[in-house]
């Protein structure tokens, strides 16, 4: 499923809204989620999962082409942890 398919499915669920509203809502939700992480805050969606940031300390890496040492600075990377409901529904082996 792509973002445009997601918008299409939501538009079908809300026939009383104009299709543009589903598009606007999806982009608003995603922007708010990205902005939250960019501020260093967490996202917690009950039944879906949580997004947080993991710290990566600085390290010396190597340019694989030239073999030169390069300092890779410390950074944060986004991390998602699936919530109970999502985990159980996805795992068909249950």
């Amino acid at each position: 499923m792509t973002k445009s398919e997601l918008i299409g499915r939501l538009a079908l669920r809300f026939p009383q809204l104009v299709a543009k509203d589903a598009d606007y809502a999806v982009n608003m939700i995603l922007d708010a989620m990205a902005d939250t992480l960019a501020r260093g805050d967490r996202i917690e969606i009950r039944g879906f999962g949580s997004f947080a940031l993991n710290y990566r300390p600085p390290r010396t890496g190597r340019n694989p082409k030239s073999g030169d040492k390069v300092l890779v600075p410390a950074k944060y990377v986004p991390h998602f942890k699936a919530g109970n409901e999502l985990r159980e529904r996805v795992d068909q082996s249950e």
Partner: protein
Amino acid sequence: MTLTKAELADLLFEKVGLNKREAKDMVEAFFEEVRNSLEAGDSVKVSGFGNFMLRDKPQRPGRNPKTGEEIPITARRVVTFHASQKLKTAVEHLKNGSAAKP
């Protein structure tokens, strides 16, 4: 502050002009559609944000950390999230200690 469904619904009410009921239902439906897709075995690709992918993990040996007893961890399907380059770039600048702990 932590972002939750309540804040997202407030945003749709204020900025998109949905009524309170619709805003709450829209947020719920958004995550339900993503869950439905993943449950059906179909990954979800959100350009500019990231991809929710499925991984089938084989059974592997495990241990009860309390008792030391060996128990197999059964084969399972799990969701993994891969942030887009845009999202990665948006968070990497944060200073150590400034971000909320997972």
